């Protein structure tokens, strides 16, 4: 494992000499401890070393409470790591969400007092984008997420899946180069999740953005990702990185392929022990 990680680093350092570096975001030795270490502080995360390659679809899976959301908070700049460093496009991320990073949360983050249209235009207006350009981008985004007929509706009139689409559209119009999603479909039913997964793939292909998806659904990770990081129980560390080898043009139909079953099974084997540990049921080895 360690040799593997080191080999990857070398690769990236070589790529770093090119005008378009393959490394898009990087975490080095990142830990997050809540409270005072050793005095009842909670060691939530790390140390984690993680490299996101430009344009890849990366998923993070792990047992509940392993620090997946903390990982996202630290990477996005919403939270400052206790130790280690975070960088995005070569620049350090320090306590502020950098331009070019978009985040979609699990909870409903629509503004209930704004229409779908105004919700999606929110970030653009804050950024002082030209009104004609806002009009253009929002029109496109509303169509992209299939809410054209609901542009004037308020969030209360929408289903959970539609509201999550509003949040995705709101992120999309900002043209982020790195999109972080924290269990965005966690609150949705199975069918809606599948459809949203396909839409997410479409979004990823069209924007060319790097995507990091936090999920607890192994099949979702196996279906959507180029690469999957498996986290240990708390304090969460990346214990394995799995390449899926899917083509860029893909959708939920790959779920019927043999490789899909193998990846899911491998993820489950890796996570079984960690999940038992997280639940306080761990014996020795399995």
């Amino acid at each position, binding site marked *: 494992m360690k040799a593997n990680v080191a080999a990857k680093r070398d690769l990236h350092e070589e790529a770093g000499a090119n005008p378009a570096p393959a490394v898009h975001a990087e975490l080095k030795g990142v830990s997050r401890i809540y409270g005072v270490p050793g005095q009842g502080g909670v060691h939530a995360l790390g140390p984690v070393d993680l490299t996101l390659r430009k344009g890849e679809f990366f998923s993070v899976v792990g047992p509940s409470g392993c620090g997946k959301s903390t990982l996202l908070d630290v990477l996005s700049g919403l939270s400052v790591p206790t130790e280690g460093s975070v960088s995005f496009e070569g620049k350090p991320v320090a306590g502020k969400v950098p331009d070019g990073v*978009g*985040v979609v949360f699990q909870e409903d983050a629509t*503004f209930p*007092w704004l229409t779908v249209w105004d919700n999606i235009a929110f970030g653009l207006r*804050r950024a002082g984008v030209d009104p004609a350009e806002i009009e253009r981008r929002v029109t496109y985004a509303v169509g992209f997420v299939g809410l054209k007929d609901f542009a004037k509706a308020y969030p*209360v009139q929408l289903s959970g899946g539609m509201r999550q689409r509003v949040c995705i559209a709101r992120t999309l119009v900002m043209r982020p180069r790195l999109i972080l999603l924290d269990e965005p479909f966690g609150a949705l039913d199975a069918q809606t999740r599948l459809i949203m997964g396909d839409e997410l793939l479409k979004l990823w292909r069209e924007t060319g953005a790097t995507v990091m998806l936090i999920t607890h659904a192994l099949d979702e990770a196996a279906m959507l990702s180029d690469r999957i990081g498996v986290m240990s129980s708390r304090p969460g560390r990346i214990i394995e990185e799995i390449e899926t080898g899917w083509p860029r043009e893909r959708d939920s139909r790959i779920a019927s392929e043999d490789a899909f079953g193998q990846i899911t099974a491998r993820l489950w084997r890796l996570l079984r022990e960690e999940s038992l540990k997280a639940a306080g049921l761990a014996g020795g080895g399995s």
Partner: protein
Amino acid sequence: MSWAGWLRLIVVSGAVLLLEVLCRAGVIAKTVLPAPSVMAGDLYRLLASGAASADIGETLGNVAMAVIASILLGFIGGVAIHAMPRVRRALDPFLATYYAVPFFVFYPVLIVIFGLGAAPIVVIGTLFGVVAMLINTLNGLDRIPRVLLKTARVHGMDPVRTALMVKLPSAAPFLFTGAKLAIAYCFIGVIAAEFIMSSSGIGYSIAYAFNNFDNARMYALMLFIIVLVTVLNAVLFTWERRIMQRRRR
């Protein structure tokens, strides 16, 4: 109008009609209660003559001042206390039991401090209204979903913009409720204070008419207050519903 709305209308107009019949038939003596139609006539004549205009103007002015003071102080106080969780924990029991205190026992003190006139009345009205606004402000701020604040940070918004564009609209329904309650409480506080510690205003006029057996004037003014408060509440209710219907199911 809904079925329930019609039923309410029938109940209220039925009760007024019954009262009218009982008064006209002499079951209720004139000296106790004039018939509603007579009351309305008295009110019309009172308003037309302008004899009560000064008192009405003064009371409405006092209520307006108390409402503005309650809403401003309640909002600012709520925001400040919300920003200081320790202070809030210390104050919580006081806020919870605040309305158990009968403020009117302090009226001699208030007169000593502020003298006779509008000041102690406005102070009593404000004492009534301010904590309703403060508690609802705290409630509204508590219920801002954390994910909306995170969203503001993702969009790189500074604290001022976050307050104006995310916190304020998110808390708005509770602020509205607070303001509505503050208005109602200020009316109660001001009119009740005028009864005991004033020499003008509607409350004083009602008490004066009562002491002088002037039933016509007393009931006319009572009717005026009831109609005024009802209309005011109906307007606020309609406004609130119009704002909220697109936010809540």
